[in-house]
């Protein structure tokens, strides 16, 4: 879980160009990390590549916070 969080965090920092300290499990992509909807779609695509998995559109829509993403990825591996 901690390792997953670190990998997810790194992708978010690179992709959204935000300060590492802002990326917490509770942080909302749209409200706290200033991502727009398309940023989130792109982010999900990168996570799929990074973790070599497929995240369905239905699941992707439920991902609002960093924690949502980390928990979903952890539940699948």
């Amino acid at each position, binding site marked *: 879980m901690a390792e997953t969080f670190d990998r997810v965090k790194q992708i978010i920092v690179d992709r959204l160009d935000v300060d590492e300290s802002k990326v917490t499990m509770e942080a909302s992509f749209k409200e706290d990390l200033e991502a727009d909807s*398309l940023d989130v*779609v*792109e982010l999900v*695509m990168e996570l799929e590549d990074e973790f070599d998995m497929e995240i369905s559109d239905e699941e992707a829509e439920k991902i609002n916070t960093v924690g949502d993403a980390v928990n979903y990825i952890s539940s699948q591996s």
Partner: protein
Amino acid sequence: MLQDQVALVTGASRGIGRAIALELASQGAKVAVNYAGSEDKAEAVVQEIKERGGVGIKIQANVSKDADVKRMVKKVVDEFGRLDILVNNAGITKDNLLMRMKEEEFDDVIDTNLKGVFLCTKGVTRQMMKQKYGRIINVASIVGVSGNPGQANYVAAKAGVIGMTKSNAKELAARNIQVNAVAPGYISTDMTDSLTDEQREQMLSLIPLKRLGEAADVARVVRFLATEDAAYMTGQTLHVDGGMVM
């Protein structure tokens, strides 16, 4: 001009699609020739591309079926490693007077001509977003702007394509994906060969340039939209109709 780029042209076994595939290949693009049923004709297009020193493959897929589209896009990327240009050209007609038009005739045309554009665009977007580069060119029709009796289904689909072009252009612009359309007028193809002399005369009287268009006339404009020459254009519909609708 399109060296090292990869293009997918739907409905490319004949008519305007075939001309577009050959035109893009002549500019150095590797071209995936999509077809729904005419395998022989698609193979002939691929052979023609190869004879002229180009690279091409044919891929069967029904653009109105999501699974087909996914398989097609995957095959292009597996084969060539990227996908720079999508030309949404596949289209059918099932003309009938409004009062006689069957629900099925309406649905079939909307499925291929409008939903097909949606599915193919959606299908390539992921790859294009990753590349941070893409050009999507939709082949609409001038009747999508002007209307045409007997073509409620076709006109609705083509007007829909023009609208979707604008919407997709706005949505994808930030990712360096440009979406434009061409609206051909009366182009000499299998679709127009069946006209009577009288119908043909009638048609010519509406065209300021006084001739039917050739598929190559449309293909050259599509090529323009695919190149860097059109770098500052998105969401536009270019009329290629001899001045018929201004």
